[in-house]
């Protein structure tokens, strides 16, 4: 199977409450906290599209968009 390629990491800032789960558990430290304590994709180039952040997000705020 072809390895998925990341198109975009979308984080809905209106829904994110800054719980920090995605930042803590990302295996490649892609996400970081911004000035408001919410998650943002600081290093999208490291993302392997494992989608752990998307599946664990309690706010349903994170979406990993993969290139078709």
């Amino acid at each position, binding site marked *: 199977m072809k390895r998925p390629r990341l198109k975009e990491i979308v984080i809905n800032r209106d*829904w994110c409450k800054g719980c920090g789960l995605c930042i803590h558990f990302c295996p490649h430290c892609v996400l970081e906290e911004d000035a408001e304590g919410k998650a943002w994709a600081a290093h999208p180039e490291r993302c392997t599209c494992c989608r752990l952040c998307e599946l664990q997000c*309690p706010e349903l705020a994170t979406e990993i968009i993969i290139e078709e």
Partner: protein
Amino acid sequence: MGTRDFIRERFFPHMWCPGCGHGTVLNCLIRAVESLGLDKSQIVMASGIGCSARISGYVDFHSLHTLHGRALAFATGVKFSQPALTLIVPMGDGDALAIGGNHFIHAARRNIDVTAIVMNNRTYGMTGGQYSPMSLMGDCGTTAPMGTLERPFDAVKLATAAGATFVARTTTYHAREGISILKRAIAHKGFSMVEFLSQCPTQYGRRNGLADAPSMLEYFKTHTVPIGSEKAQEDPNILERGIFVDEDRPEYCESYAAMVQKMAPSSGDGGAL
């Protein structure tokens, strides 16, 4: 369809606290429903009272927000009158096993085709963090400031003993496993019980040395193991995860339909009665 088609976006962001595991259960549930290819107009979600019960307001299914502990009774009524519908009943640990303990064991005993999701955060979060029948011995709560002296229920053993034909446990850390277990539970014909260990950092975590969501998920990661692992035998604080029971037994609505069929007048003899 995407996951957004299964939620009522107008109510987001939801009312749960930052890092609440119930949001992850919702996340896993809609992905399970999406992956099963179910028609959302054929799904009914009945819930009781508590933080967990608010999940029924966020899903774009038919939803019933009912009495504390009585969601399974309402679900039984819906399923009995419309057996073609898929019934999902999310409950908190107190809602399922304290207030609704009797409904829980009898729904399991009847083997009615309902999927019960016990979102176990080991506390009564909405009312301020009182200890629940799932709080572990020694856990602190507002009603147990020095730690509770009571032994918790084991939801898996309870559901198994009561006769549930599908019994499983997972956690919000193991989201991928959670989705696959929920898929199996919803597809199962008969009473399914999934215990979903869920974090309540606000009311449970802060009182028990796990003040944020990441530390609570780290706890789930280190204190649960797949079924059969030796670690669980050696340490009573480690819980097993996975599918404990998956068996076929006559489902209640089907048995009832068969009874009706048996009693219906057949041509020629004027009926069995």
